[in-house]
């Protein structure tokens, strides 16, 4: 089983992940329409690029925008969760050991204690976000089962990973489950609304170009996000 999930299934999930992301990018850009979107993407490109970069940059940092600052706790946990989601799997010692075994290459790795804390914080953040969804009427109304499923898919690899790390009874069960959960996560990124992994950048760039080219970017200093 271990061989299967770290072999063919891993190849399958990484293929879906990478190709899916490329397809997302291509489809997004091909679907842009200067006339319908009312943004001259190909004219005044310098203003467009500037607008796009500003639009991404300010939002990429916690408290970089009015919206992040207005919601300090939400921002804190959302950023913490995303840092954990992105850093832990890439720089985890265990993953890199596996990588070296298979391909003879590996990346710099996080100290195990840090990876452990990050994983726990991802779970804590997800729990808090779920509680927020339930507690705030304006969020509760718009929340769907799909939103909870997304959180579950994102958190499952961390929960199962920690179980394996702590050598819970049935270690190999947790390990295989962890790998499967990670693979589900990978596949889900291009196929579900977790596609914001890449669409965040594209959508932000688009609105940034709109502001940079048409909505005042050529007249003022650019929108104070």
């Amino acid at each position: 089983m271990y061989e299967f999930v770290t072999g063919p299934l891993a190849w399958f999930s990484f293929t879906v992940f990478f190709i899916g992301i490329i397809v997302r990018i291509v489809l997004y850009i091909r679907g842009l329409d200067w006339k319908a979107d009312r943004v001259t993407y190909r004219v005044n490109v310098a203003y467009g690029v500037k607008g796009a970069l500003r639009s991404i940059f300010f939002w990429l940092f916690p408290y970089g925008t009015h919206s992040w600052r207005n919601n300090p706790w939400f921002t804190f946990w959302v950023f913490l969760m995303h840092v954990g989601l992105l850093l832990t799997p890439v720089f985890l010692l265990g993953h890199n050991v596996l990588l070296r075994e298979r391909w003879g290459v590996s990346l710099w790795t996080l100290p195990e204690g840090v990876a452990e804390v990050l994983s726990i914080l991802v779970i804590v953040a997800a729990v808090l976000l779920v509680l927020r969804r339930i507690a705030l009427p304006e969020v509760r109304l718009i929340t769907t089962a799909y939103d909870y499923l997304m959180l579950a898919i994102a958190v499952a690899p961390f929960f199962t990973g920690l179980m394996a790390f702590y050598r819970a009874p049935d270690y190999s069960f947790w390990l295989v489950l962890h790998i499967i959960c990670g693979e589900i996560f990978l596949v889900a990124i291009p196929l579900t609304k977790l596609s914001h992994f890449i669409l965040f950048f594209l959508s932000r760039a688009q609105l940034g170009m709109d502001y940079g080219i048409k909505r005042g970017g050529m007249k003022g200093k650019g929108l104070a996000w």
Partner: protein
Amino acid sequence: MPEGNLCNKKTVDTKEQLQALLADKSGKQYYEEMNHLEVDREALWAAIKKSFKSRMKTWMEVCSHCGLCAESCFYFIANKRDPRQVPSYKIQSTLGELIRRKADVDNEFMQMCMDTAYAKCTCCTRCGVYCPFGIDTGIMFSYLRGLLFSQGFVPWEMKIGTGMHRIYQAQMDITSEDWVDTCEWMAEEYEDDWPGLEIPVDKQNADIMYTVNAREPKHYPEDIAEAAILFHVAGENWTVPSVGWEETSLAMFAGDWAACKMQVESVYAAMDRLKPKRMVVTECGHAYRATVIEGPYWAGIETGKTPVESFHYVEWVAEALRTGKLKIDPSKKIKEPVTYQDSCNYVRNAGLGEVAREIMGYIAEDFREMTPCREHNFCCGGGGGLNGIGRYREQRNVGLTVKRDQILATGAKLVVSPCHNCWDAIRDMEEIYKIGIRWSFLKPLLISMIEVPEHLKPKEE
């Protein structure tokens, strides 16, 4: 497919159609007929498939339902944090549902969409500034309005408005003759006080082609005279076109994109005909947005720019003050606390926040900003055509309370509002809530403050 005599999928292109609509007081029959209007699902789905592309598709798909847009929406605040006023909810339950159902929807659903697209969103686009993914719900509601218009689900006044644009190339029944007569009349009326005052019509190669909002010739002709006086004092070489003088676009609010194109092309044709160096637009927010910001796209101009460079009135005023064409008498500056209303249509949609502050620096001694302001300012409460729609008066009046409280918090009793729509909303706000404020366009304030050169003053008899 049953359609009403007044409420139908047809556009209003003749005076007879227009008269019939106008004769139906408050749209009583119109809205009654709307209850029986059938949805052409195939046409609607075909329209969506053709026009719903990656930008909006992504917005609709990736929304995490985080609710950060809630507090960005003045309706959410004005309606005591009613969750049904969260932008994400409003768009998902209308356009989102329409798409999920592949346009398999009924009359009731379409009316719900119309009520939401007009009475719960003024397309102020503030939510887009607060969404981490840059989801601009205002743009999507504007798109939804277009779909609704194509199916005949549009408020009575908006249907009339689009008809006016289609027939008169103006939002009101002002013909080219009416317009030119008004200009002549105003020039004569004010000539005694301002010797040599002119309103030059159709002058070729002027430095400025000035264009207006049809309400000015219709209801506020003195506004045109005031513009003329200020150009006169500033020594501008200016003109107005006899045709193509109207900047506004109720068609934009109604989502009648064909009429939008017709309207702006009438202005661009005037530019081509008169060859001015630049155009200046009167103190109106949506007019400027329609003709200068969005218009080139409707007309298919690939640079996204108007045929000659175009400026909003606030830009011209700031420039005139900066270059000394207009000089303010320091003793006549506004002494009392005064605040400034940023119009969504040119602050969030054209970035004209800074020039407004420059002007206030010249004319006011105690200028007080609203909180929030500039690109983060709230809609006046009457944007997106809402001021003019009787059916949604109550919702509009509730929405006004956010702006009311913003104004009150500044402590100022005077609000400078260089936008017809905001100006109306603030006027109505005073009428309804009686908070003891005054409101003004820039023109009358400037005329009361400028230094007039000796040779432009009337000769003593």
